[in-house]
Structure formats: structure tokens, C-alpha cells
């Protein structure tokens, strides 16, 4: 650090965070804070955008008009969430161009949960309850984030995610009260999405080297494993109450701690999918690139119109 005032500024910055103030664009911040936020927010934005794909495939096959409107609205929300987050990342000095290019060129990370296939309509239900449900827990924490634009995007997103989770949970409830075949559809969908949903909270705490610094600067306020435990404690009894089960024979309630405990996540699979070797990585990227290319004429027409009128 060449800046002789660095230590003073860092102390002031940390005091502001300790007082509960939000750090805003243009305020002084350590370089590592800016870099961590750009990394997290851009990944998060890309996840929202790619997150449209697994369910988007089912819009044309919705079982009735209401379900179709609900799913359309949900997928449209995810597009909006991507926009809120690209905006937040932009305030830190990275351009939307850079983030979108990185995604299209396969250099950007996004939530690996979206690299699993959606095999039936009940997957839409399971994604809503489990995947959006897990996202809400993470995002509720991030709404307390010390960086103003990220926090505000999260408050806005959480208000909308409640709908995503509930429409999915409502469908699983209906399936669980239906015919044996319907009940089985719900069970198979939960079996498919259970482990990917648990992986959404990220690596084991002992494998997340960034966490202590992120917590010190108020970017995160809880660890991956704490959030994952909260998810287990809410979802396992909920799923069981419906006469369904989670695909983990070791899952049990630990009287001593008051928590639900199951077997360890398959971390090899976790890292494999993150590194690009999941069942749908290639297909998701191809779909993003195609959507970008298919929209080219619209962008060109809009630009030409603006130029002609301007």
C-alpha cells in the first residue's frame, strides 16, 4: 500500500460498517472489498439469467392457464433480478458488457444448480420450493449487506422470491394429496433437486477461504453451513409432513442439538459441476448464446431508430 492514509481510511470504513451505515458508490473502500463484491454480484447476476432456462423450457407445457401465467411471471422476475444485480455490480466499476461477454464466452461462474435438467412438470414445483427457497435464505442474509446497491437489489429480490417459493410449495402440496402417480412425480422431483439445492449454499465452511473477510466487512453475516442448516431444519419436516421424503437415508433429527442431520454432500460432484462438467453446462451456455444472437436484430433496429430520431 503506497497510500499513507490507507490505515486511517480503512479504520473509518470499518467504523462506518460497524455503525450499520451502507457503503455507497463513490465512497472510499478497500480494493479487496470492491473485488469480492464484483465477484459475488456478477456471479449472482449470471445465476439469475441462467436460472430462467431450466423452467423456461416448461412454459409451453404448463398444465393450465393459471400455472402458465405464474411460471411466465416467475421466469420474467428472474430476468429482472439479473438486471437489478448487473446494475449493482456496475456501480463498482465493471461494465455490463464485460459481465455478459464473460458469461457468453463461458468464463463466468453461475449457480451450479442450474446445470441439472428439468425432466417433468413436478420439477417446476420442486425448484420453486427447494431452489428458490434456498435462494431466499441466502438473499435474506445478503439484504443486510454493507454495500448499499447490493443490499437494495436483495431487498427488492426477496420481496419477489416469496412468490416463487410459495407457488412451488403449493404445487408439491397438491401433488402430495393427489393420486399415487402424482405423489410419485413429486417424490421423484424432490429426489432430483434435493442435493443440488443443498449445494447452492456453497462449499463447506472449511473450504470457503473468503468467508472471514466477507463477514468482517459485513458483506455476509452468516456462513454457508449456518444457512444450509437453517434450510434442513425447515425443509425436512415440511417434506415429511406431506408424506414425502428426502433422498438421504441418514437424515435424522438430532435431539442433542435440535437440528436435522444427514450425510455429507458429494463434494466431488459439487466441484465437478462448478468447473463446467455438469449434465447441462454446455446446453445452458448454448441456449444463452442463441438467445443473445436471436436478439441481435432487435438491438440493431433499436439503435438505428434512436440514431435516426436523435
Amino acid at each position: 500500500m503506497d497510500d499513507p492514509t490507507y490505515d486511517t481510511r480503512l479504520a473509518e470504513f470499518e467504523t462506518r460498517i460497524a455503525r450499520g451505515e451502507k457503503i455507497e458508490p463513490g465512497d472510499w473502500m478497500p480494493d479487496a472489498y470492491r473485488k469480492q463484491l464484483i465477484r459475488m454480484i456478477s456471479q449472482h447476476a449470471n445465476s439469475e439469467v441462467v436460472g430462467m432456462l431450466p423452467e423456461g423450457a416448461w412454459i409451453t407445457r404448463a398444465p393450465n392457464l393459471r400455472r402458465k401465467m405464474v411460471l411466465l411471471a416467475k421466469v420474467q422476475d428472474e430476468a429482472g433480478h439479473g438486471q437489478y444485480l448487473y446494475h449493482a455490480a456496475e456501480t463498482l466499476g465493471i461494465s455490463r458488457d464485460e459481465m455478459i461477454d464473460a458469461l457468453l464466452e463461458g468464463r463466468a461462474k453461475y449457480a451450479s444448480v442450474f446445470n441439472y435438467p428439468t425432466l417433468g412438470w413436478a420439477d417446476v414445483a420442486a425448484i420453486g420450493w427447494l431452489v428458490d427457497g434456498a435462494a431466499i435464505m441466502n438473499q435474506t442474509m445478503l439484504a443486510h449487506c454493507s454495500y448499499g446497491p447490493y443490499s437494495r437489489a436483495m431487498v427488492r429480490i426477496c420481496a419477489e422470491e416469496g412468490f416463487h417459493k410459495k407457488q412451488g410449495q403449493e404445487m408439491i402440496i397438491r401433488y402430495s394429496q393427489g393420486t399415487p402417480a402424482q405423489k410419485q412425480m413429486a417424490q421423484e422431483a424432490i429426489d432430483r433437486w434435493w442435493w443440488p439445492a443443498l449445494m447452492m449454499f456453497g462449499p463447506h465452511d472449511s473450504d470457503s477461504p473468503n468467508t472471514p473477510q466477507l463477514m468482517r466487512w459485513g458483506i455476509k453475516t452468516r456462513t454457508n453451513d449456518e444457512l444450509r442448516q437453517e434450510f434442513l431444519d425447515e425443509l425436512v419436516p415440511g417434506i415429511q409432513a406431506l408424506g414425502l421424503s428426502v433422498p438421504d437415508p441418514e437424515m435424522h433429527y438430532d435431539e442433542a442439538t435440535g437440528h436435522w442431520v444427514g450425510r455429507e454432500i458429494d463434494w466431488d460432484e459439487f466441484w465437478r459441476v462448478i468447473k463446467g462438467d455438469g449434465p447441462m453446462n454446455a446446453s445452458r451456455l448454448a441456449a444463452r448464446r442463441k438467445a443473445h444472437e436471436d436478439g441481435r436484430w432487435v438491438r440493431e433496429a433499436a439503435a438505428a431508430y434512436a440514431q435516426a430520431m436523435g
Partner: protein
Amino acid sequence: MTDQWPRYEVFKQDRTDGPFRNVGSVHAPDAELALMNARNVFARRPACVALWVVPDAAIARRTAEQLAAGDAVEIEDSGDSGRYAVFSKQSQRQTMTYVDYVGEVTARSVEAALQTAADTFTDVPGIVWWACPVEAITASPQSDLPGFEAATSKLFRMPNQYHTVFTMQKIRRGEEGEE
């Protein structure tokens, strides 16, 4: 490479008697498309009665730190005086919006408007100030109102339309789950 359009800051009004509040930004080739994008991104639900978009380049900003440090800003005192819209961040609490519209001031430059704003609206806790020339604002036309109103009928977008908590309680008590 994608080609990035200019950024427009978006301000949303929730009620006709409420302030315009900054909710985020969109990119667009002109103000007309910026309004359209803003509607898709920020007005999918109630409540929205009007939107403003302002080119990012037209906005001057002073952070809390700059104000506290009293940084001497070069204020051009030449030029004609004009009307400027001013906005401020008013709370450190967790919110959905950033700066709120507080009113207009007359000044000879956008930087001067920021100074005048802080001196004029002394009862507003200006944690952050923004200013822009009033003519830089493009407001959604009155004809957009039916579109905003349509969002109020899309109740299936609202979490309170789903009674999952209540239904789960009934199921746990051994009752039939249907509402």
C-alpha cells in the same frame, strides 16, 4: 463483443402523492426505450403510477464523505442559471430505494445545484445528493397509466395469494390440506 448502450437512472413513483425514488438503472439507446425497459424491470407489480428516466451522464453526485470533507468542488459561476432537480438519500436503514426527489433549485451549473440543494433543503437529511437539469428527465406519458394499473390485477405475483403456511399447519394437525 456486445455494444453497450448509455445508462439511464430510473425513478419510480408508487403513489401520485409520493416521491420519485431511484430504484436502479437500465441501458437503452434513447429515453423512450429506457422507459420501456424500466417498466419491464421495475414495474411488474403494484405499485407504480409513473416513471422517470435520466441519462447517467446528466447527473452530478456528492457522497456523504465528500460532503463531510467539505471537498472544494470547482463551481462554475458563469453560464446562465437554470432549473435543477435534486435528490437525496435520507436514511441509513435497509431500503429498496436510494435517493428520493426533494425538489427544484435554480443554479448556474449542476455542481452549483448540489451546493444550493444542501443549503436549501436543510430539513432533509442529505446523506447523498444528486442533481440533474430538469430537462434531462423523461417522464412516462399519461397514456402508460393503464399499463401500470394492469399490474395491480396480477395477484398471482403476490406471495400473500398463496396460503402455504396455513395449509401446512392444517396438514400437520391431520386435517385435509385444501383451502
